[in-house]
């Protein structure tokens, strides 16, 4: 598989058919991927438009469904927030395909590390066994684990539009039009089903905040309760009601798990030494393991790694780092996505019918590009592809110019003290919700490896 070109395209073709590539090709692919990833900072800069995806977990056919629903690479830019492997039957094919796409179109696809991208976890949750089964040795597993160590820990999306250009697709069945915002409203959230039909639409600062999405099948997930109308005085984040101001959204931090008590600025993430197995504790571990929860401050995580963190922590972190939103994955959400803490953080889950058992739907989050953002720079398309480099945005300087000074705890506590409003309007968010790939195309092995239920 010499650099880029047609060998890579052949490998992509083969993997798209869910057929593993030979061991020596995997070795080469992983080598190339490492060369590419080593150039990325711990926090990768990414420009909108981009489609943000959560856990995949080896559900290859559902990953194909995701590409069908969200658009193919390289036409759509993707950011995958980790947990490519384990649990599903096709971790190998899923991860290698994503890796091939990364090497082929480095500036079209971003992969960050999940807690399952680790030697220890993959030996318990299936990826190791799968490699052994498919290649007869652990070599491929070892190559992949070496790549895991180089994956970035987070991504910072900038240039996202504050309001959505509404989809003019048809309405989904059962959509209740009474709750729909006016056509000239500033659309903050739109939810579409796998056919692109509109399930739900929500206007920013709308008076109809009571218009919780009754008609939305996902309505049991608390979607976007009441975004605050006005940011704290002096932050310049006062938003206009009708979407005339479009470029005031802060950046969006993407990370697999969540925050860490050891990390109060994004710059601190940048300083970590990430090129190692995921440690059992410490900042790097927390970023991959933590969960938001309805608590105040920090709490112990029942997972035995990482922490729980409450709304105050998120709001403070977002304010301090000039973020409008944290997007993360890591937790199964039956409705595919779940916004929490007045939409300051969202969980995106992209493995439908998780483990072929949970019955959940999946979602991906599309962030549009902000047309009026002067700083927006179109990415090169990856067509000259293959070769390393390729990042137009430097990985280490993206959008940090507005940040409040490092580690300023006085500032932090004063924020906590008086005003916990959001400082930034969230980006316009389009969720595409989809179900598991149809049974017949899933190609489940005839013999399931383990008992799935208690019998």
């Amino acid at each position, binding site marked *: 598989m010499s650099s880029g070109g047609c060998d890579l395209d052949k490998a992509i073709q083969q993997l798209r058919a869910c057929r593993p590539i030979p061991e020596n090709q995997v070795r080469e692919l992983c080598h190339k991927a490492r060369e590419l990833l080593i150039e990325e900072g711990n926090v990768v800069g990414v420009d909108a438009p981009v489609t943000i995806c959560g856990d995949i977990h080896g559900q290859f056919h559902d990953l194909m469904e995701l590409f069908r629903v969200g658009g193919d690479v390289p036409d759509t830019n993707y950011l995958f927030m980790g947990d490519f492997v384990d649990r599903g039957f096709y971790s190998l094919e899923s991860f290698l395909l994503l890796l091939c796409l990364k090497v082929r179109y480095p500036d079209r696809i971003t992969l960050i590390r999940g807690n399952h991208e680790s030697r220890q976890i993959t030996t318990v949750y299936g990826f190791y066994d799968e490699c052994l089964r498919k290649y007869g040795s652990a070599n491929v597993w070892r190559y992949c684990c070496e790549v895991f160590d180089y994956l970035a820990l987070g991504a910072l999306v900038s240039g996202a539009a504050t309001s959505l250009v509404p989809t003019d697709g048809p309405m989904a069945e059962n959509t209740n039009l009474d709750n729909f915002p006016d056509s000239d409203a500033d659309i903050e959230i739109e939810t579409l089903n796998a056919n692109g039909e509109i399930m739900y639409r929500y206007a920013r600062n709308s008076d109809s905040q009571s218009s919780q999405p009754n008609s939305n099948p996902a309505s049991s997930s608390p979607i976007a309760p009441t975004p605050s109308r006005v940011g704290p005085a002096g932050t310049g984040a006062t938003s206009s009601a009708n979407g005339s101001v479009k470029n005031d959204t802060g950046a969006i931090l993407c990370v697999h798990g969540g925050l860490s008590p050891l990390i109060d600025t994004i710059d601190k993430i940048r300083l970590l030494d990430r090129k190692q197995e995921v440690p059992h504790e410490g900042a790097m571990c927390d970023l991959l393991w933590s969960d938001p929860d309805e608590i105040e401050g920090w709490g112990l995580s*029942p997972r035995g790694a990482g922490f729980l963190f409450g709304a105050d922590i998120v709001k403070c972190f977002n304010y301090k780092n000039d973020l409008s939103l944290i997007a993360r994955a890591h937790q*199964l959400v039956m409705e595919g996505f779940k916004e929490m803490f007045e939409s300051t953080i969202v969980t995106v889950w992209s493995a439908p019918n998780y*483990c072929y058992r*949970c*019955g959940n739907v999946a979602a991906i989050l599309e962030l549009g590009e902000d047309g009026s953002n002067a700083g927006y720079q179109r990415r090169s398309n990856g067509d000259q592809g293959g070769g390393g480099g390729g990042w137009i945005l430097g990985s280490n300087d993206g959008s940090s110019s507005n940040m409040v000074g490092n580690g300023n705890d006085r500032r932090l506590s004063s924020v906590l003290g008086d005003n916990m409003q959001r400082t930034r309007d969230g980006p316009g968010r389009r969720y595409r919700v989809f179900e598991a790939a149809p049974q017949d195309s899933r190609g489940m092995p005839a013999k399931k490896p*383990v*008992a799935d239920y208690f*019998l």
Partner: protein
Amino acid sequence: MSGQEIPDLRTLLGSRRGGPSRGRARGRGGFGSSHEGREALKDEAVRNTDQDAAGSRVSCVELGYLHDPYAKLFATQPATRRLPLLNRGSYVRTSAIDDLVDRFMNASTGPKQIISLGAGTDTRYFRLRDRYPDLQLVYHEIDFATNTAAKLTSIQRHPQLHSKLTSRSAPNPLALPPAATTYHSSTYNVHALDLRTLAASSEENTLPTLPNIDPTLPTLLLSEMCLVYLPAPTVSSILSSFLQKYIPEPTPVSLILYEPILPNDAFGRTMISNLSTRNIHLPTLLAYPELSDQRARLQQYGFHQGAHVADTASIWRAWVTDEEKERVAALEMLDELEELDLLLRHYCVAWGWRDSGSEGVFTKAWADIKEQ
């Protein structure tokens, strides 16, 4: 794992009750195309669930969740390590039932009886003998002949098991003939029969005799993933045979059920469809979808002194001590917490009893257990 083995013809013969004749079914060229054929295949799938349960038990034991030296002696398949969340669930299942049984054993010093419905390869009898060597216990297990034969073969093969068949009154274990499907003694009894034959049928009121069932001993009926495979009216009828014919009033009787709940949400619907691809069907799951339905069902059976329910997620939270939780949590890294909660919420333990009230053995044993 299932459905691929050759169906047991005895069941086919045993379940003839009208419908299309076998001749016609054969004529159409399909085993499985007749009503009997389909039913036989379903029974086959249900019988095979026992090795799933055995395998889950072995996985739990090997990883230190449960202490059970007998589990692996009954497993016919090589031990495969189950996922951490399945081990956790099996742990909660076994330890919750153990907890209820222990309280019964300790409630009074008198002799007691336990009847395990669809016992499969359950090891509870052997563990109880170790734990309560002096207690007078009459233990019964009921299962299909294929399963009881396999169990008795394992017992005969392993002295650790065989030696447990003795009691003070009968110190020498009976030698079992090869291919035995039943075993009877004053402490341990294995009955080979289809539970459906215990459903009191209106026409012929002849129930099979169950040797050594003592109609006077306080009796615990146990259905750990067994009655769920039968239609709800059949289950009612089987239980009324026990409660009225085999162990009539005023003998204290109780029932412990372990089975799935919540068939109508996304997880439940997926469970039903996944299991049906293995030809496993859970009729009572649909009949008693919620915890409250399980409670009402116990009352309907006549368990008026107590009828309680708890899902296994709440049992893990409320019944397991903090110390034990810590021990169990340290056994394996468990990442899939949301999924675990989802899974555990879909299984419940229900326990109900009939006795004389405040001085009754079950009231004493179970009155202060937290339900959900």
